[in-house]
């Protein structure tokens, strides 16, 4: 892990926006390169960790690091513009400067996934926190068994990482099941139609030697966990990430707790068993 050499734990690294990619009409990816050479070389993170991204003058916003730790030299974040900070981040163009603090939080236990089959289940804008791990696993493809990705969004236009979905579809070593909510499909849609939990039930991946990784809006998670249970996934075979509002990311500001769990320190990655033990406060 990269030791932040700043004594001031709130001081971000500066990063240059290298590339701006529009995923949907309101979801954008920024590819960022750290300006300081040492930070560029030493910044390392694990899939699942998050960062605080600054638009100076507007403030900071929390998102996962959406790129894979196996892809060196840059990081990516992906966000929907819904507030003051994200709207400012959206105004950034290639060459502009922004701030990044992190990496923070725990990560997926990737070593424990070696030798297992993986089922990724994502809904809407929640693909980025899994996409970091998906590429991490695909870049180490030999280490894993079968890889299944079930991804859905409200409409075709709301699917993020469209080029990568195509790439995954074309690879022989991944099974991609993409879906849109009923009514969200255009004439050219070649995927499934239905809500993610339903499509997951139809896909019916075997739970045998398999780990499921689920990210999505709270209602999707709520309906997906019982489906996995029916498919005989134990609560320790299922991982998810929680996304409470955060400010510090450091276990100080007191904002992100779910019961006595600090999402910024104890999470954001939790097993379904851990989530079920928490009070409904996320």
């Amino acid at each position, binding site marked *: 892990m990269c030791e932040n050499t700043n004594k001031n*734990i709130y001081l971000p690294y500066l990063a*240059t926006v290298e590339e701006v990619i529009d995923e949907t009409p309101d979801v954008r990816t920024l590819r960022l390169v750290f300006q300081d050479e040492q930070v560029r070389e030493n910044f390392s993170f694990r899939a699942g960790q998050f960062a605080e991204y*600054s638009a100076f*003058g507007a403030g900071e916003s929390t998102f996962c690091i959406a790129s894979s730790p196996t892809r060196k030299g840059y990081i990516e974040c992906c966000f*929907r513009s819904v507030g003051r900070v994200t709207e400012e981040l959206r105004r950034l163009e290639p060459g502009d400067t922004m701030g990044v603090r992190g990496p923070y939080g725990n990560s997926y236990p990737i070593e424990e996934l070696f030798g297992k089959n993986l089922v990724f289940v994502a809904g809407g804008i929640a693909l980025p926190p899994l996409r970091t791990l998906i590429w991490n696993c695909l870049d180490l493809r030999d280490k894993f068994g079968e890889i299944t990705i079930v991804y859905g969004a409200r409409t075709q236009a709301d699917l993020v990482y469209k080029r990568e979905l195509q790439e995954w579809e074309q690879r022989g070593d991944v099974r991609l099941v993409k879906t849109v909510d009923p009514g969200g499909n255009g004439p050219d849609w070649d995927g499934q139609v239905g809500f993610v939990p339903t499509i997951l039930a139809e896909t019916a991946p075997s739970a045998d030697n398999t780990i499921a990784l689920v990210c999505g809006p709270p209602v999707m998670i709520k309906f997906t966990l019982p489906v996995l249970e029916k498919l005989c996934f134990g609560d320790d075979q299922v991982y998810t990430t929680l996304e409470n*509002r955060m400010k510090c990311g450091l*276990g100080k*500001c007191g*904002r992100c707790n779910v019961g006595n769990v600090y999402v910024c320190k104890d999470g954001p990655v939790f097993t379904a068993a851990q989530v079920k033990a928490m009070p409904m406060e996320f």
Partner: protein
Amino acid sequence: MQNYISQQNFNALLDSLISQGKRVVAPRTNAGTVLYEPLANAADMVIDQLPRRSGKEAFFPLCEDIMTYQKEGQKIELQDIDPTRFLETVLVGVRPCDAAAIPVLDAVFSWDYKDEFFLERRKKTTIIGLACTQADDACFCTAVGLTPADPKGADLFLTPLEGGGYACETQSEKGEALVANNKELFAEPNGYKPLPLAEPQTGKFDLKKVKAWLDEHFEDPAWDSIATRCVGCGACAFVCPACHCFDIVDEGTEKQGKRRKNWDACGFWKFTHHASGHNPRDQQPKRYRNRIMHKFKYYDDKFGQTLCTGCGRCIRLCPVGIDIADILQDIDKIEVKVKVEENS
């Protein structure tokens, strides 16, 4: 080691610290309100009054800069804050309920990541505690394990004496240094009698029983009737010596400005409001539950202490008369009821 200092010499001590360029923070009247503020003269101190807000501001200001930024075309320059600029400080007249909250805050700001803003100021601060001789109806320090004579958190602890002056006990190296450097102002104790201690309300609730109930009852119909009046003004958090939640905000223009750390309160609806519009604590009772849970369960689970020292400030100030000690008493009663039912 025990020493005596007269009120006159104590003031002389503070004046000499002020003249040495130290920041001497003590209860002082400002526009009719007593607050912990830097003194220009020891004579301005009203040490016999409990300030409206706690002493935590000496290390954790209501609002502080954590960096500045400057934009020049596509480039941005950040300026760090130099912690060496924090002044050597002596915080004076801190009663046990305020002093005990300081180690509680230390735990938050030093576990894992170190908050140098807090810790540097803390390192540079000497705390002169004061045994408490005046309680009011709101005080309940004894119910949360403290006493009006508890020196916890103080470097030098004063006990007011009959006829004026103080008995002084050093509690740390900082306290010893303060006495050693000003030996001529202290005298041998000689038959002085302490003023009677304050007698805060006690026995309203049993902390262990409250914790045991909180452990099992995040969901409970009782919450619907607890603090329903709360209007979410956040005053209780702002006056509390132990509350430590904060916000990080930018203030300035696109060209230049500062990033600041400002006090925040879990009673505000926006505190947990997600950008998506979802709010896990979407109603005031849920927010108040977090206040109680954090103080009497979560903090205890994590750091083994209670996040309340019974100073009573939140009770005195709440605009709708919510009394946290009464709420804990109610919770204590529920627990009794549950136990009785189980036994029958």
